[in-house]
């Protein structure tokens, strides 16, 4: 068993994929980081101090983890959901009562979304109270603030999609607030967002596109920059 496993990890096929052997020596451990696309956001070595759980509380990493959960569960929800006034609510009912594990899927997506808003806020507090925004990390803090705004917007645009009373009036209250931006700008912003003066078919499609494409892509790009900056600014 053990020998077979060893043989596999030494085979050319394995090598061609992973380019390194098992992480048994410090050398192969370092290689495991920089030959791996997903791990190379990390340096090969990290400070022991920054590993202490009560320093970061894992909050940034868990925010990213929640984002992954949201993308995965969201993609599955998209298979059953159609963004039209005729169908949206019925599709939610189908998810709850017809689709296997549909309710569970919806729950995962909903609770992860709420958790992410809170998690990102807490991460911001951690960064503040450890003073980790100070030079050279100041710009990464700014990227973080933008990420926080995007997180809230993602959650908010998703809120309309079930097209129930909660969704409809929650969005109406919010877009009415946007209307109060002065110089007629508010009216325009809200018109642009809703595709009209009321929350209707156009608003649903716009929120859907923002929620499922524009905002997640923008957030992913920003997260990429954020993680890259964490490294370039000298690590946590």
């Amino acid at each position, binding site marked *: 068993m053990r020998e077979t496993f060893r043989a596999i990890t030494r085979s050319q096929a394995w090598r061609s994929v992973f380019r390194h052997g098992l992480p048994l020596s410090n050398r192969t451990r370092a290689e495991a980081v920089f030959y791996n696309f997903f791990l190379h956001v990390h340096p090969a070595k990290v400070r022991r*101090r920054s590993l202490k759980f009560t320093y970061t509380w894992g909050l940034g990493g868990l925010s990213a983890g929640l984002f992954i959960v949201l993308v995965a569960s969201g993609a599955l929800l998209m298979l059953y959901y159609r963004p039209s006034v005729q169908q949206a609510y019925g599709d939610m009912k189908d998810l709850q009562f017809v689709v296997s594990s549909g309710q569970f899927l*919806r729950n995962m997506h909903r609770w992860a979304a709420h958790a992410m808003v809170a998690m990102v806020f807490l991460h911001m507090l951690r960064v503040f109270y450890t003073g980790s925004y100070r030079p050279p990390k100041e710009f990464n803090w700014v990227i973080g603030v933008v990420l926080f705004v995007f997180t809230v917007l993602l959650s908010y645009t998703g809120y309309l999609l079930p*097209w129930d009373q909660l969704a409809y009036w929650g969005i109406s209250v919010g877009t009415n607030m946007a209307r109060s931006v002065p110089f007629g700008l508010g009216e325009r912003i809200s018109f642009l967002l809703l595709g009209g003066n009321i929350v209707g078919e156009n608003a649903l499609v716009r929120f859907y596109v923002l929620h499922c494409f524009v905002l997640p892509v923008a957030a992913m790009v920003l997260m990429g920059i954020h993680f890259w900056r964490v490294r370039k600014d000298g690590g946590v």
Partner: protein
Amino acid sequence: MSADFRAEKNPDAGAVPKRVAFIKGRTAARVRKEDEDLVMTVPHLVVREAIAFMAMVIVLALLSLFFNAPLEWIANPEHTPNPAKAPWYFLGLQELLHYFPPIVAGVILPALAVIALIVIPYFRVNVKREGLWESSRRRNLIGVCAVAGILSVLLFLYNVYAMLIPTLIVAAVMVTPAFVRRQGRILLWLGSRPLSWWIMTWFVIVVVVLTAIGTLFRGPEWSWTWPWKEIY
């Protein structure tokens, strides 16, 4: 062998922005003591990340098994629920809307908050992270009392008790170390907090209080409703 160079530590980032080492003689520079204790990312960090992620997914899955996401009746533009509430993270703002005109509560205050957050790292007062009462005690005391006083009067005039009470409490705790002679550990610690710390702490407390009131304590017509009676 005597040291070729000496690294000095100075907590004041403003006075010593960079560390400069002068290397005498022909020997290569050598750092005697690693000031950072490094460990391999694989396994130390990656294993922790994997465990944290899996634990989080388990918690989420349990939550999702036992609590269902809400789904009310189909949207009906003719029938406005009372109260009509935004999602919880906007209820702090909606609570403000109860006190201030929409332009203040919905635009100016949130915009100010975001701008304030963005400029935090560039607003380099007190780089030394000196406590408020360590030097220039009198000046700081007058400043803090003036700002807190003006803010409190404004909040009082608009009847924003939900912000006034936290503001007064924070201000009181803030100035206490300036007056007490014999300080225990907590007071010493509070006294050594810089101004930015106080502003952020005040901000967070206000945000939490407003959001909690908007979420749990507001019912029809945005009237005060105890959460054990009903949560809207």
